[in-house]
């Protein structure tokens, strides 16, 4: 009896929504690989542009021998460490810059000067200062993260509607309370946006840094592929970067939705 009963309408709608989201993604990815395959096999037809089947087979081999995981986890660890340190430093600096004009005037020369020096250009300095070990990579990720988080946080503070502050004042809040209970929560969406942008930049930076000076990491896999003419390896690294970036960004968006959905005006 119960088995034959159709599912309730609400569940049905949810299933359909899940399908439209994930089905859409799946279809998008499949079409991407189909076009890639067609382009590689029928238009280019060269060993320099392997079709997806060969790349995935090679990826499977590298994954089974553990080589891929080694490179992937090396890159990911560097990104996470630098990203967390950069965000943790950027947030209070951005809040201070947004809240106090003297602090802004004092620190703006730093942020406005340094943010135009790309982190890729800082690789040379980083290697000279910190060697080719972890320290130089983490320094570069911190460098690439911190300014975006600072600028977004400061912009978030200055974007707070004056009436929010005034309302708190006439409700009897002290300066410290206004900062803690109004300015800080009002800025959360901006901080998270800054962090998401910073995460995307971290991928660029880490690959560039590993291309030039590293013993492992996805950039190193890329560089070795060029050195030894292992075109398949190059493509494995590229696809891994794409998938990794996509997953990390989804994860970020999901955690924003779960933990900070109420801070975002859209939800």
């Amino acid at each position, binding site marked *: 009896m119960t088995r034959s009963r159709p599912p309730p309408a609400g569940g049905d709608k949810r299933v359909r929504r899940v399908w439209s989201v994930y089905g859409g993604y799946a279809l998008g990815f499949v079409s991407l690989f189909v076009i890639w395959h067609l382009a590689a096999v029928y238009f280019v037809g060269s060993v320099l542009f392997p079709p997806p089947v060969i790349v995935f087979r090679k990826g499977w081999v590298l994954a089974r021998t553990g080589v891929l995981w080694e490179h992937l986890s090396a890159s990911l660890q560097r990104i996470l460490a630098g990203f967390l340190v950069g965000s943790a430093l950027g947030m209070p600096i951005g809040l201070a810059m947004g809240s106090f004009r003297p602090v802004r005037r004092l620190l703006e020369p730093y942020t406005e000067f340094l943010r135009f020096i790309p982190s890729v250009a800082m690789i040379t300095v980083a290697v000279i200062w910190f060697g080719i070990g972890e320290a130089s990579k983490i320094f570069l990720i911190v460098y690439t993260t911190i300014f975006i988080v600072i600028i977004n946080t400061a912009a978030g503070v200055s974007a707070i*509607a*004056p*009436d*929010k502050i*005034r*309302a*708190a*004042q*006439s*409700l*009897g*809040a*002290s300066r410290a*309370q206004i900062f803690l*209970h*109004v300015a800080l*929560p*009002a800025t*959360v969406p901006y901080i998270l946006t800054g962090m998401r942008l910073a995460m995307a930049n971290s991928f660029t930076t880490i690959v560039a840094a590993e291309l030039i000076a590293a013993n492992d990491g996805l950039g190193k896999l890329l560089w070795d592929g060029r050195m030894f003419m292992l075109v398949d390896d190059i493509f494995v690294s590229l696809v891994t970067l794409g998938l990794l970036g996509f997953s990390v960004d989804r994860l970020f968006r999901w955690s924003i939705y779960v933990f900070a959905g*109420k*801070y975002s*005006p859209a*939800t």
Partner: protein
Amino acid sequence: MSFRDVEKTYRSLQGVDYTAVEHFSLDIEAGEFFCLLGPSGCGKTTVLKLLAGFEAPTAGQILMDGRPVTGASRDRAVVFQGDDSLYGWLTAVENVEFGLRMRRVPRSERRERALRQLDLVGLTGQAQKYPAELSGGMKQRIQIARVLANEPTMLLMDEPFAALDAQTRALMQEELAGIWRATRTTVLFITHDIDEAVTLGQRIGVMRAGPAAQVKGVIEVTLNGARSRTDDVFLKYYRRVHDMIRDEVAAAAGRGR
């Protein structure tokens, strides 16, 4: 509450001075509902900002219970025109208890008081919703509940219903009048709408067109009980206020051109 010869001059980014109000004097009695009416750009909001303590006067004095106003304080609660002042990350009830939370009123007590205020403004059952989930009228009700929960000596309202549709506005005016009759909190209500002023006010102060605006005259409205827009007496007051403000509206419009 009294304004004594108050002046407020703003300096624009180009360095040009603009005097919004000059020699502005006004007394508001404790417990009265005072409407300040004026054409757009006449400095009504400036008057409210000065009294709220958000801005300091360039000259003159503002006294509250005999003491000069030096800054924002919880004895002068403000209901703002838009919904910018609500905290989007807090639920309706959390918005209402904000002032109590800042004063460290125990959790259960402040929750109870906030819920009572929400009932009073007709938001029973909406306590756990976020402002973004509520209509414009409901958001203004949260603002009103939020200031009432804080038990201010005076309510300052800056065209709180201006952005609402006509039906909601009329309903909110009726409810506000009811709340005022129940609490007898002093109210300074700013509006550009004659109808609204005659509906709500015990006294109506008509402002001159800016710059350097003052109160042109004060009309006492002796309508008892519920006010009906179709009553002859209502219309008589409407006409009196209208006659007083007509020239000022024309002046404001002429200046704008």
